């Protein structure tokens, strides 16, 4: 865990980052009403619900959120965002928190983060996602034994011709890679 001063600095830096995303400054207008948490299908499973996340940010206590089982439980359903009376794009805020965890190495071993990274990697390799490849990466990197109960489903999908054995690669992959290399991600190439 970070010290109080470090934690305050981390929270402030993160808030500055949020202000830079579309409509991100709305976070300043949070009235702590809790509509987000009440609307969230995952909040019961989170250690800190959406309202508490904003409260933690303001209190300079982001660290406790990042070190808890919280941000990767967001399923991106946008219920919080559409219901927020202040118009805070909270789902986008969660994306930024997820990226911060990836960046700081805090998401190692978190299944949803492993899934997201395996997905991005597959898309970078082929320009498209390939579900069989994605799931193979996912189970190998989390718990391969967890793949066993999936075998009957995989067999059903296979016999229906629904399993993509070989990934399809787009023709313009080289071009796409040039595009990806041309953009800066928060100052980092």
């Amino acid at each position, binding site marked *: 865990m970070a010290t109080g001063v470090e934690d305050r600095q981390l929270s402030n830096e993160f808030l500055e980052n949020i202000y830079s995303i*579309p409509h991100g400054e709305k976070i300043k207008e949070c009235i702590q009403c809790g509509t987000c948490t009440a609307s969230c299908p995952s909040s019961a499973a989170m250690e800190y619900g959406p309202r508490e996340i904003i409260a933690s940010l303001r209190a300079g206590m982001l660290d406790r959120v990042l070190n808890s089982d919280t941000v990767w439980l967001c399923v991106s359903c946008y219920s919080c965002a559409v219901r927020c009376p202040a118009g805070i794009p909270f789902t986008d805020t969660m*994306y930024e928190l997820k990226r911060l965890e990836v960046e700081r190495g805090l998401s190692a071993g978190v299944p*949803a*983060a492993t899934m997201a990274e395996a997905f991005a990697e597959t898309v970078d390799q082929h320009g498209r996602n390939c579900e069989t490849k994605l799931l193979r990466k996912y189970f190998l990197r989390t718990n391969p034994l967890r793949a066993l109960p999936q075998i009957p489903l995989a067999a059903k999908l296979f016999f229906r011709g629904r399993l993509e054995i070989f990934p399809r690669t787009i023709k313009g992959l080289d071009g796409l890679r040039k595009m990806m290399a041309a953009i800066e991600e928060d100052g980092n190439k």
Partner: protein
Amino acid sequence: MISTTSAVYSYYPGCSQTATNRAYDISTRNVAGALGIGLVELRDWNCCGATVYLPVRRKRAFVLSARNLAIAEKQGHELATICNACYLALRKTNKYMAEEPELRAEIRAALAADAMDYTGSVRVRHFLDILVNDLGEQAISEKVRRDLSGLKVACYCGCQLSRPFDDLDDPDYPLIMQRLIGALGAEVVPFPMSAKCCGGLAVTTNPRLGRLLTGKILKVAKQRGADCVATACPLCQINLEAYQRKAAEAVGADCDIPVLYFTQLMGSALGLKSRDLALRDSLTPVKTLLNEKVGRQ
């Protein structure tokens, strides 16, 4: 209905539809064909980034969608999508590029690295939107060949069809699919779970949470007396059809119900053959249900 748009659209199938959920792609193309809607596949399209590329790399996620939009702009039609995640990712990129000059400049510079550009002229449409708002319920009713009146349908739109952007329909209770299924002559059951989350990828990454969310949707569909659930998103479809037993354990209620794409149901009403709708791809007894309630498929 007076259509303000062309009857030809660029068509973005989405990665899921090339394999696991090809039934959605097959039934969409055949329904469009039967209705005289032209779908021209987007040339060399790439992944939209869905909801899972964003938490890893944000700007690059926008570049993924922007490349597709750039190709669509060159093809010169509106862009039709069938997957809710593609629909959202493409619209989000479109909107943010329009609203944020700095981001727009960065993305255009990235596109230029492969001699592409996007000026922001493409309108992204969901196939549901095209059917209901361009073609219209009346025109669709006139094409119905099979009687669906004995079939009770729970219309499940999924979370990303009308959220966060609610220009298409109500963000909490979208009714667009009900209007379509109603126009086909089926009985639509009131289904307040229409836009609740199916669990998305949590069904795999956090089964305890994911199956609870899936189960709630299936449970309510059963309680409302539906014979089947119609879906508009490939991830919703597989979550609802593949994990019914586990979902039933999670919510402690019966979750055994056929689940099919709205395009499959629509194709059945239009008199298309089972093969043209890939009904045998289903993990639930969709074909048996339709044979029984609608007539031989």
